């Protein structure tokens, strides 16, 4: 039977790369995002790689959207084997200049989206009797500090620790569901180039912070997400898997 993986934020960056990698591992991909044109492009890329995919456009910060999406998925599919909560947002600003509105907007995009995704992921897995795996994309910034990123660091720390507790609850289900956070270092995606620019100086700055002197890619994270989703990680739950080129180690 074909396994099914839901990937949020699959319209770019880590989400799209993860959809492609999971498709190569044999998963049917249920991609989600806000932009239908970019969603269609993800579906096209999955199909070009020999996989199958569908796209659903909804707002991951809306509980009613999640409830409707979960209904659609469990009506159409007999199992939900993996959920990658990849949708998220980022900004960098000194704390004295950060407004509460900006903080709340990021918290909603990064934390509430993951809380809702995990809640409805557990429900979908329960309703389809799937021993599934949920992977919440957090960040190295959820484990160590990053200048001018107080809101993002706080949000990602929340995602990391929320995932540990969700792992305890997932382990009480029958069949058991695994939950992990995946904590990338600085990965060269539109999220970074959108905030800092896309040029060689930014690339060099990103690279220089890593122990491995290379730029981290969306594909690096997609591989780790696929590992966590796979039976190879059958006993991995409640962990924060760090993929950062050694950036956080020194």
């Amino acid at each position, binding site marked *: 039977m074909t396994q099914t993986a839901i990937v949020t934020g699959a319209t770019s960056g880590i989400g799209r790369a993860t959809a492609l990698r999971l498709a190569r591992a044999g998963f049917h991909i249920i991609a989600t995002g806000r932009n239908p044109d970019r969603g269609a492009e993800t579906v096209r890329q999955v199909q070009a790689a020999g996989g199958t995919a569908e796209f659903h456009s909804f707002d991951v910060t809306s509980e009613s959207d999640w409830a409707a999406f979960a209904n659609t998925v469990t009506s159409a599919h007999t199992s939900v084997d993996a959920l990658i909560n990849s949708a998220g947002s980022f900004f960098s600003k000194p704390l004295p200049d950060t407004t509460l509105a900006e903080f709340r907007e990021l918290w909603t995009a990064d934390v509430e989206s993951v809380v809702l995704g995990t809640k409805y992921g557990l429900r979908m897995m329960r309703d389809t009797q799937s021993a599934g795996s949920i992977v919440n994309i957090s960040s190295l910034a959820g484990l160590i500090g990053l200048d001018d990123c107080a809101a993002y660091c706080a949000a990602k720390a929340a995602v990391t620790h929320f995932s540990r507790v969700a*792992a305890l609850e997932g382990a009480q289900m029958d069949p058991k569901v695994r939950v992990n956070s995946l904590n990338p270092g600085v990965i060269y995606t539109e999220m970074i180039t959108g905030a800092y620019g896309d040029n060689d100086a930014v690339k060099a700055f990103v690279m220089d912070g890593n122990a*491995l002197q290379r730029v981290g890619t969306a594909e690096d994270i997609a591989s780790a997400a696929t590992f966590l989703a796979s039976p190879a990680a059958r006993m991995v739950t409640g962990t924060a898997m760090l993929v950062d080129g050694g950036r956080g180690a020194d």
Partner: protein
Amino acid sequence: MTFDVKDKVVLITGAASGIGAATARLAAERGAHVIATDLDGERIQGVAADCHCIGLKHDVTSEDDWDNAITAAVHHYGRLDALVSNAGIVNYEPIIDLDMARFRSLNQVHVEGSFIGLQRAVAQMRAQADGKPATGSIVLTASVMANCAAPTISAYAVAKAAMANMARAVGVEVGRKGDMIRVNAVCPGPTRTPLLEGAMPPGAMNDPAHWTDVPLGVPQEPEDIAESILFLISEESSFMTATQMVVDGGWSLT
């Protein structure tokens, strides 16, 4: 679904049983060239025969034995792509009864053994790089006991914490040298190995009542740890270094 380790030359210590034997078997099944070593020179030949790989007697506290093991890899396959420093022993004793000789031997096997292995493996990976950035993956089998605690496990916890942070320190050091040599620790929770089974009451390993403090409810099989080790050896983890990968069924969560 597996992560590609085909044609990688992999040296695995402590491979006569438990996690090391499972890693050797899975790596060999997936097309890696395995050099399996162990202090028990007879049992390692049994594993080598089963896995169709090279088996060597290897005392990891001996620098000469490390040189022999690495020379064997290079002699047979021309290079070394990965080292799994896995040999280990265990000791359950209250600290007031712990004999210094046993404390030292525990640290010799885990800490000194891994230290010598890292030195020799990094040197070989650099020597074979031919002027290009050196590549390779080194995995140390630490333990959740590197960051957790339980009674009577102090000496083992000390040794495993040292191994976990050795991976971190050496990972940063060799990366900063411009090499693509990666060093990571895997931190298993309670796993069905002869080490653990020998320390448990008879029958406890298969008694669900014994595993209620593991959220996933069962002991891990050696293969579960081997899968993580093989992921860390594969190119799909090529941006991972200086990390600790916990595989414990959620045991350390509470």
